């Protein structure tokens, strides 16, 4: 699929009120690049995060989110560019940076044959905690992640959601100023997901700055003060949600759900001729393992184009299973900027 002309690779700079504050940002990223041989995973991204902010990096799988987090957390060495955290360079002062940050990796990074408490003890010690301070902090974290009663059970006996919570708990032990959370809700049940999102908001209320990566538009919308949209290693948009959705104006998105045997590409092409249709794109959406065939249509007034859209589909013999109309959101922004659905 091709990028939307005019929006493609250019970073859309939107100045926010937060950036105008006088406090120096806790994180500053300048032209960060990561290459693996001929492949460039991150292509010179720049952004900053203010203390106390929840900043989301939103993008599809393979966009470069985890590589970015890995460079910022000092795990990978950037090919070019620079980043500072709490005033410390990630390349020149990695140990100082590690004391400022907490990291919740995308994949569980726990010792499953140890109990939750034993895991927290070990990781707390790795962050220099010991004695009474360590025990007190572990009790607080266990309370925070809701596992006080089951702290003495081995992690391998836990559900996926409980493991995720311990994974988060490890990242919180040393009370980091800046917490990196890399897709912490992937592969868990809705209840655990809700619990994690609430925890992020609570942590932020307590003053913790959060860099949150996700490919779920809903999570970015619910949590973030500001959002950076990343695709193919480039930061293609950056700003508050209001600023980003303004890019698609007052336009609405009409999502047509069709059968998997239907020619969604042909339908999307035919819909572009309807007056009022600004953009029409065939997409594949993955809803909890089930792949849905959809056509997303951006229009000024969704209701106005609904009848001609259905007519066009009927003319082509395509059966529409259901239709959703959504207000301007980050999904629409991504679609507008890339010509692809975020969920592709």
């Amino acid at each position, binding site marked *: 699929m091709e990028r939307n002309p005019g929006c493609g690779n250019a970073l859309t700079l939107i100045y926010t009120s937060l950036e105008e504050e006088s406090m120096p940002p806790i994180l500053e990223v300048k032209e960060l690049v990561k290459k*693996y041989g001929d492949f460039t995973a991150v292509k010179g991204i720049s952004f900053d995060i203010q203390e106390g902010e929840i900043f989301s990096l939103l993008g599809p799988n393979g966009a470069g989110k985890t590589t970015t987090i*890995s460079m910022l*957390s*000092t*795990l*990978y*060495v950037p090919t070019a560019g620079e980043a500072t955290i709490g005033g410390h360079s990630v390349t020149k002062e990695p*140990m100082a940076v*590690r*004391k400022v*940050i907490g*990291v919740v*990796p995308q*994949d*569980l*990074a*726990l*010792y499953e*044959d*140890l109990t939750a408490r*034993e895991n927290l003890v*070990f*990781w707390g*010690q*790795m*962050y*220099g905690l010991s004695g009474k301070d360590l025990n007190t902090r572990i009790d607080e974290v266990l309370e925070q992640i809701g596992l006080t009663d089951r702290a003495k059970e081995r992690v391998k006996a836990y559900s996926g959601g409980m493991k995720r919570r311990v994974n988060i708990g*490890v990242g919180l032990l040393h009370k980091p100023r800046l917490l990196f959370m890399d897709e912490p809700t992937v592969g868990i049940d809705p209840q655990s997901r809700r619990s994690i999102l609430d925890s992020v908001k609570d942590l932020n209320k307590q003053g913790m700055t959060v860099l949150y990566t996700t490919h779920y538009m809903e999570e970015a919308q619910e949590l973030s003060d500001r959002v950076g949209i990343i695709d193919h290693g480039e930061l293609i948009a950056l700003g508050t949600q209001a600023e980003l959705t303004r890019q698609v104006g007052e336009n609405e998105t009409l999502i047509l759900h069709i059968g998997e045997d239907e020619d969604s590409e042909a339908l999307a092409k035919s819909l572009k001729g309807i007056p009022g249709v600004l953009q029409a794109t065939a997409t594949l959406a993955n809803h909890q393992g089930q792949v849905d065939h959809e056509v997303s249509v951006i229009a000024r007034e969704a209701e106005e184009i609904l009848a001609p859209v259905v007519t066009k589909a009927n003319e082509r013999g395509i059966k529409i299973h259901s239709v959703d109309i959504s207000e301007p959101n980050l999904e629409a922004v991504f679609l507008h900027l890339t010509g692809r659905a975020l969920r592709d």
Partner: protein
Amino acid sequence: MKKLFLIGFKDVKLIFRDRAALTFMLLAPFLLTLGMGFVTGQLGGGSSSGISQIQVLVVNQDDGQLGEALVEVLQSEDLSDLLLSTLVTDPETARTQVDADQAAAAVIIPTGFTDSVIPADGQIPSGDAAQIEVYKNPTTPVSAGVVLAIVEEFISRVETGRVGGEVIVTQLLAAGLITPEQINMIAMELGQRQANLVEEDPAIRLDSAESGQEAQDFNPMAYMAPGLALMFLMFTVSNGGRSILAERALGTLPRLFISPTNSAQVLIGKIFGVYITGVAQMLILILASSLIFGIQWGDPLGVLLLILFAVFGATGWGMLITALARTPGQVSNIGTAIMLTFGILGGSFFPISAMPDWFTWISKITPNAWGLDGFSILALGGSLFDLSAPIIGLLAMGIILFVVSMLFFRRHSLVQK
């Protein structure tokens, strides 16, 4: 430094919670030792005194003091439970009887053996001592190995006396303290003293004069148990190496690297964990075999020191395997292959002394061979001071392997990309 220990002890805790690993580390060598004990008759109704009454044929063609001394050693009261020596006059008859499986070995002392060591004419010896032949029965390698060890120790002591005698006579002559005519008399006296020394201090003393311990039988279980323990030590060190790559795949190693812990501490901590696990495994196996099989391992301090160095050498191999492999599965596969190969090469299944010289040389690349040498020395009454060769061998092996491993680790960075 503290984090290094924390990482190591965390790994020890994890390994002792892994039932599959424990089965291989502790149960398998223990059961194999038990099985071999039954096979060799050491357990389950066999003789209670270890391998005993080894049939040895002795052919003494020498008419000097040293030939007589060796015969007396082989027929001594100290070795009476272990050896059943029979004097035979003809070497060919002795070899035929060994071939017919009627004896474990034949010791053939050649004509002129004493004269080749202590010249009767008072001349300085030429340096080429006559060779004592130990004709071994290949179907009884353990028993034949015991006989060979006894004769080798005897020769070693005689050789020490011979060289000493040469030096003394040469020095006395050079200093003008004796005349050439007196050489014969002095040499005879030294020879007599040497023969008496060998008789008084038998080559294989099962009652150590130095330690004052009571006589003990040589129990071949004391050979099998360390052999198998050392073989399964190779499993432990390769399994420990596998855990480094497994932690990389599980994400805990990258998580360690982004904690305020430097990379060297993380890696050394992991290696420390492997080392401590290996030491714990060896200690448990040795303690269990002492209590259950009644194996006498010898000087406890020597045993401990030998364990520490054997595990060091073995850990070096574990790290090299890990540094060369790409995945945990590769470490397991290579580790298993090396465990079995080293088990064979290092003498875990049969004594290396029964094998050709080239085999003995190759075996020196294994911690098994050095370790078994050391454990045999201790089981036969040796002390801490007799362990210098195995300890130096294991130390050198460990250092070389660690240096090479670190070079490979640096090349194939574990996480930093």
